[in-house]
């Protein structure tokens, strides 16, 4: 069985923990509880006939005054960058998160989640520029959550 370490990265309160919780336990809690440090969860899945154990690092979100410890990035094969569609600044900061991660793991793969998509109107949803590796997700409504992880695994195994 292949074992892969992936990180969830992004600003604080974008819903990283909610995405992990939805994916691992199938649950959702509206209450915001900030993550401190890192919490690692495991998930075994089979993608295109390959069994893979995902080690999902739910890393605390970066804030204007507190950046993420670089030690967490070591040895990661992939990352899910998470932004909050209700806060434009989290999208603006995406590039910085990508640059830091890829500097530590140049060959790693990634996908991007535009999270809290349940808050978007139909018109706003159409306006969101989602692409091949960008997914409109909602941990609350369980929208595209599994797809997000599976697509990342596919990229890592390719």
């Amino acid at each position, binding site marked *: 069985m292949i074992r892969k370490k992936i990180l969830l990265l992004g600003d*604080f309160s974008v819903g990283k923990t909610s995405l992990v919780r939805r994916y691992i336990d199938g649950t959702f809690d509206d209450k*915001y*509880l*900030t993550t*401190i440090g890192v919490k690692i969860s495991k998930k075994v899945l089979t993608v295109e006939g390959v069994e893979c154990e995902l*080690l999902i690092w739910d890393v605390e*979100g970066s804030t204007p005054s507190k950046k993420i410890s670089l030690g967490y990035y070591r040895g990661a094969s992939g990352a899910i960058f998470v932004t909050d569609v209700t806060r434009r600044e989290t999208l603006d900061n995406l590039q910085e998160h990508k640059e830091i991660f890829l500097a530590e793991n140049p060959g790693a793969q990634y996908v991007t989640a535009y999270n809290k998509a349940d808050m978007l109107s139909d018109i706003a949803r159409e306006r969101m520029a989602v692409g091949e590796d960008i997914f409109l997700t909602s941990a609350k409504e369980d929208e595209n959550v599994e797809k997000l992880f599976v697509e990342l695994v596919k990229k890592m195994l390719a």
Partner: protein
Amino acid sequence: MKNIQKILNAVLSKNIIEYILIDKDLIVLDSSKEVDKYLEKKLQIGDDLLSLFPEFVGAEEKIKEIFEEPTLIYTLESVYKNDYYVNMCVEHYDEETALILVHNITDRTLSQQKLLQYSNESILLNNTLQKILDSQNALLFVTNKDEITYVNEQFMEYFSLKRVSELKRRNLKIYEYLDANLKDYNALFERVNDKEEYLLIGNDTFILKATSIEETHKLFTLTKVTKLTKYMQIDNLTGVYKKSYFNACLERLLRKKTEAVLVVLDIDDFKHINDQYGHQTGDSVLKEFASLIQNNIRGNDVFARWGGEEFLLILENTNIENAMMKVEQLRRLVDTHIFKEIGHMTVSFGLAKKEEGDDVHSLLFRADKALYEAKNAGKNRLVFKKM
């Protein structure tokens, strides 16, 4: 050495630090008793480190280097394990063994988490409030000592500012636009307080409101109403400005130092058109005439209907020679134009140049007198009246 052993025993007895010894294959050789509390299953000698601590997956090479190099250390901070928060540190023990210290930092981390939660929630609230403020009308927040401490995005955008400090550098004082010889924001507040004041900035009209915030600050709100006021100042029939708007423009113009010429236009023998073709046709002629002139002047020239068949035109930044050339062009334009319902008609023009000491009445009086002379001299001509 004995002392170190004592200290180590003391630390271990408090269950703050646990240890694990591993070999080069990352197999557990030994551990302290309490390390199990951080794990999902009981640790046993011979266990694979990575299955007990998936946190080290991806760092295998780094850990293996530690066996060779005594100065190397690998640390992972604030890792959540089985309801505890721990710091983990891998150190060189000897060439065949590495020591992993697991430091319980749960109490400290939970306190930090509370603070971080409070801080993050405050940032979220602050960001939301900031977005609400930025979406509102232009806002200006001033202390009683005339110091501007906040302006919102709408304000910055309108005045092309990147930061509040630029206000000072550009010497931008809102009260100076009121043209009331006010010396500071306190004076502006006294004037505007409890009522609304119209403020003209460039070609825009704002409604200015002032609110006292505690005893120390004043909030000025500027609501842009340019479109609305322009719409209200448009003559329904002809689509050009009404006299009231024209007067405001003229007053503003008189305060400036730029050259300008005022023109009064009057359709010749308009009464005959009404009598011969009826008032409905008369209205159509007025509309067609207004549109003809409006389409042949510059964007910043102000054209208005005075009343009946009489119109007004301001040609700003224009000397009298150029103004006369322009008005002659307009005269010929009308003279050669075939009006849809009546065919030919003419217009007379009276011109007055803005002079020092002029007010609205004196300037209008001269232009009107010039028009009178143009009419008396046979119509379909322009006359310039000097001071």
